[in-house]
């Protein structure tokens, strides 16, 4: 009887310890969508979850190339590959679309950083920026509301404008992205994570442009590019 109890107890450990890390694919999904989305949109009545894969889109390669070209640096060949799936959450109150929520994985210095943006479906502006996972020496500062609020109101257009301002007119106060500075007290060793977060938000907005907003900020990109050429 004693032995049986011990065996069953061991089974509990076997199951709990060894079965626990059942990791999903490399995509970025909310760990508890119903709860998380309800907390972001208390008036939500339902939500839709669309898995977006470039491999399954007729113009997938073209879209992937757009992502590469507009991100500003190279995509990771392993974790940001053509095959990487993305999940777009559309939040509804009855038939009314309240917002989109979309997340990305970006490789931080000490582990994956998962960034989620809640975006207004009409204006494509960021309403909230949230971390699902962030293992960093600057975790506290980067997670602070004060830092995250810097992203509220931004659109992909602001990042395209920043490309121009950063090269031609760095002091211009119209550069909303340029106004974002590393949070106060951020450990120097966490600076790479700050830069990764900036890249992650840009990547997230770019993917939203591709998946939800039909590249509506493309004129800003073209204008920035032509201005930079001149």
């Amino acid at each position, binding site marked *: 009887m004693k032995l049986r109890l011990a065996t069953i107890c061991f089974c509990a450990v076997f199951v709990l*310890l060894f079965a626990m890390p059942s990791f999903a694919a490399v995509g970025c999904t909310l760990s508890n969508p119903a709860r998380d989305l309800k907390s972001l949109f208390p008036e939500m009545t339902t939500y839709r979850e669309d898995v977006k894969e470039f491999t399954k889109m007729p113009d997938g390669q073209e879209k992937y190339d757009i992502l590469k070209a507009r991100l500003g640096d190279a995509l990771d060949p392993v974790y940001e590959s053509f095959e990487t799936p993305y999940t777009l959450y559309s939040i509804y109150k009855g038939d009314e679309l309240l917002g989109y929520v979309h997340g990305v994985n970006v*490789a931080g210095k000490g582990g994956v950083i998962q960034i989620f943006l809640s975006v207004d479906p009409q204006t494509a502006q960021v309403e909230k920026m949230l971390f699902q*996972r962030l293992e960093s020496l600057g975790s506290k500062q980067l997670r602070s509301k004060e830092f995250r609020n810097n992203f509220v109101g931004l659109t992909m257009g602001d990042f395209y404008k920043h490309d121009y301002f950063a090269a031609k007119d760095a002091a211009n106060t119209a550069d909303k992205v340029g106004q974002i500075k590393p949070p106060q007290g951020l450990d120097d060793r966490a600076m790479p994570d700050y830069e990764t977060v900036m890249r992650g938000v840009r990547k997230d907005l770019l993917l939203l442009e591709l998946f939800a907003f039909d590249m509506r900020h493309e004129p800003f990109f073209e204008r920035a590019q032509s201005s930079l050429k001149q």
Partner: protein
Amino acid sequence: MNFFKFALKNLIGRPIRTVLTIGGVALAVAVAVSLGGFNQGYKKAIEGSIEQLGFQVMVMAKGCPYEAATLMLKGGTGLLYLPDNAYTQIKEDPDVQAITPIFIGLAEKQNVGIMGDEDEGDGSNAFTIMSGIDLKSFKEMKPWFTFKTGEGYDGGRWFDENATDEIVMGYEVAEYENRKVGDTFYASVTPNGAVEPVMHEFKVVGVLERTGSQDDGSVYIPLKAAQTIFNRPNELTIVGIKLKEFNGIRMREFEGRWLRIPEVQVVSLQQVKGALISLIGTAQIMIAAVAIIAVIVAIIGVINAIMMSVFERMGEIGIMKAVGASRKQVFILIWIETLFLTLIGAIVGCLLAIVGSGAVDTALRYLLNMGVTTDMVDITLPLLVLAVVSAVILGLLAGIWPSLRAANLRPVQAIRSSE
């Protein structure tokens, strides 16, 4: 008279009833096959998972480690540890062929979940399993480990045994953390006796190829380094043992020798397998009950369909008998209809079970996550043959009564009752 052709014609003449009856049989067979597949697959999956552990016997600290569940939920500490002198003592046992000490610790993740941001730090808890291993003996125990290669993974190797900042990651944990060879990895560990976690920085020196086992989710670190960062010097979680000869008698003898150490308990992985299988037994019994009910309903359906067919064709049967058909011929004709119904139903059911096995597997994995990584539903050819043969036999038994009723009809009475 071509009985088969005639029976088939009768069935085709009543398509709705025929399809519904076949559907009922198919559903019952599909449930029965899926259950059988689950029985087979689950046992195989458990055996596979245990084989992948590499050892047959484990020695661990005495006391019910159900506390592990508490620590998972509360994010505290609670794993039970045994002194490593148990390892040095057991190592000398003459029956031991190979032995490896393992230290398991849980590194906490910082505020997982977006709620953490909203509630200023009250995020969900999550852990990374850190396995401190003695490299030499561990490699002997699990010789199948190889390093992942390709862009970002080339040059993978085991850590230096004396290193304190090198780790090797299992396939899945590396994928989940987006880590490659040469990357940095942060792990927050609360040392024994401390309150606040300490963040440690490690270098990923290798990523293991997928094994399909629990090893894919673990981060490997030198044993001494693990004991140091968790502040549990000279403590172990598990001692994994491979015996020279593994059978019930040897196991009992071995157990008897080491149960005398007050702090330890000896667990055979065969017992673990048995216990895991019995834990799932209740669910299996419930599914079996559903399958039995489905089979009974299907049998009643077959009897009902054939009886209806007999009643509808009273006149036809009467004329057949009047023009010379014997009782035996009428019986065989009706019986063959039953045979067709059950045979086609069984085949369709088998196909349904094969096609739906993926969905059943996913559902079972969702409802009963019991620590297996391979397929939980294993539908084999012998299982399918058994299902078809059983369905046909049951169907034929169910067809006896309606066939007898038809065979025993008097021609005149039958013709009159059909008017």
